[in-house]
């Protein structure tokens, strides 16, 4: 069988090249740097500047009420009637369910599993807004780390043209190394036990495949709106 053949070939090959490869492997530290750029003073400022440089929107608010107000403004501007969202408990923003109800904005049914998958996808397609929470925000690249899973559908940051993400300043880390180390310490060996997917999002969907000219929103959201809640530590 091919598995055994491939592994056997690999072992034969490694018999002659393992020592060279191992030598190269010892040529440098395997320690993962927590971040790779000169550290900035303020993570929220750095995150904001980075994401804005990628044409992402960042709204800095002081509390949950401020965040809800901001989301309300975006919903109004986009004229949304249906949103594809994480379960409200997973987003964890006080007042958001009430806002959606008050505006008459429907929460789309996001479960596409089982029969009728294609039909349900067609029903989701017209939604103009995605709303999600995040696992972490990475300051030096303006990235969001999303840990998907039950109540946290991937489509809620993917399918619609506008993606709103709720980020708390306590979730900000400096670099990718930090974010991965944090995930490891938080979940240990169970990072993928309850979920099949972690996604890093760094700015709006983009392409430069035609004449190297940047164009936003090719397949994923063309706009990303991050509502950054900067609560003082004591207030939480």
């Amino acid at each position, binding site marked *: 069988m091919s598995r055994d053949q*491939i592994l056997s070939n690999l072992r034969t090959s490694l018999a002659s090249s393992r020592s060279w*490869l191992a030598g*190269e492997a010892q040529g440098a530290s395997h320690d*993962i740097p927590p971040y790779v750029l000169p550290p900035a003073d303020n993570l929220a400022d750095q995150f904001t500047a980075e994401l804005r440089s990628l044409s992402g929107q960042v709204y800095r608010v002081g509390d949950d009420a401020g965040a809800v107000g901001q989301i309300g403004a975006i919903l109004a501007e986009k004229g949304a009637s249906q949103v594809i969202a994480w379960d409200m408990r997973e987003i964890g923003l006080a007042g958001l369910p009430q806002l959606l109800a008050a505006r008459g904005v429907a929460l789309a049914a996001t479960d596409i599993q089982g029969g009728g998958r294609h039909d349900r996808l067609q029903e989701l397609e017209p939604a103009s807004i995605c709303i999600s929470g995040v696992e972490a925000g990475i300051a030096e690249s303006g990235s969001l780390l999303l840990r998907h899973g039950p109540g946290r*559908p*991937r489509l809620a940051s*993917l399918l619609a043209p506008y993606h709103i993400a709720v980020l708390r300043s306590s979730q900000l880390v400096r*670099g990718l190394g930090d974010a991965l180390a944090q995930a490891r310490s938080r979940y240990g060996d169970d990072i*993928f036990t309850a979920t099949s997917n972690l996604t890093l999002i760094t700015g709006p969907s983009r392409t430069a495949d035609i004449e190297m000219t940047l164009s936003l929103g090719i*397949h994923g959201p063309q706009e990303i709106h991050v509502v950054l809640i900067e609560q003082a530590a004591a207030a939480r």
Partner: protein
Amino acid sequence: MTTQSISFYERVDGALHDASLKTALSRATERFIGNRAGAIGALSDEAALRDTARAIRAGALSRLDELLAQLATNVESRGGTVCWASDGEEARTYIAELAKARGVRSIVKSKSMASEEIHLNHALEEAGLEVVETDLGEYIIQLAGETPSHIIAPSIHKTREQVSELFHQHLGVPLTDDIQTMTQTARTALRQRFLKADMGISGVNFGVADEGAVVIVENEGNARLSTTVPRIHVAIMGIERIVARMEDLGVMLQVLARSATGQKLSVYTSMISGPARSGEEDGPEEFHLVLLDNGRSKILGGEYAEALLCIRCGACLNACPVYQAIGGHAYGGVYSGPIGAVLTPLLQPDLPEAYMLPQASSLCGACQEVCPVRIAIPDMLLRLRADAVKAGKAHPVEKAAMRGYVMTMNNPAVYRAGGRAARLGSRLIGRKGRIRRLPPPLSGWTHGRDFPTLSGTSFGEWWEEREKKRKEAAQ
């Protein structure tokens, strides 16, 4: 493949005379080079990060047998299925039969060099399946019936006018010169393909052994859609693309994005471990990982093992002055540029003239200089040239010239006499200190360049004369 039926020299000649290709290539490579330089230059410690990237890759390869088995076991424990494919045929058959067994009609694909390597689309279409490339660049060249000309930007050889014409022909939309309009046309056309697809096929940037995960890096969102929306996800991974720990991504993703496009991170990085878990509302019901060997396990044991460190960032293509001049198609293989000149003779040895690709390099070393894992590409090109000579592929004129070369250089008397004759000859055919046309086999030189006429005395003769005079003066 159309590119294989004409000779390497004809492809090069065609490329060098293609004015729009030249414009497109210089626009793309200059942009990529500038973006990369800015992003790499901003790092706190560029050298250390690249050293670590190299060490991580080498360490993973040094226990590839163990890590690959670990990856497969973990994928299976997450509910995924693993196909070990020794060659393209096994991979193609597995995927086609899977599609048939599951009643798949329509397939969406996100960019995968491994699938290009095994000509997967062709096989799936033969099996009656509808396959759509969804990366914008790949979609464009699929409509055009072509192959990628760049690892990162497969359609850089196409102008906006050509793209607009393709969309007009195939999608019935009006002609436009607005790129944003074309992008939205592609979004609309492809969106329905995603929603109706039964299977998504993706490549893999990194397989993470300890988590049984595959990592897919992209900017458009087509890979996310391909791996989230259809009920079946098939990921194709070259067996060498492995890292031991999820934490290693903290280095590899950083050097990949910076080297490829100059981004700090690509827009989307999906880490996928198995099919959707119970309670997950989206994601595929089935996850299949195809581990493609196709010659890699053999390469690992030889003097080209270092080529397997490659993370397919494309930086060496952009930096290469030969690639800048001729573009990707001239190479004739799936992989182009400096790393393509190494990989093609190794992975596609039956490709006619694959042995010639290592000749298409001035050995300037720009590729190695930008490589995020510091692959010594020029050294490997030299070894491949030696392999070709050993295999008897050198031109008879070159063989004769080399015999003459050794005879001349190793016999000072012949060297001196030959030198005198050549210097005299140069003055016979040259005028005003320059030669405008050399005889064959050197006539290629004077096609676009002059050669100087040579002085009557060699340095060696001058030196001996000087020493003789000095001795006489001292006596």
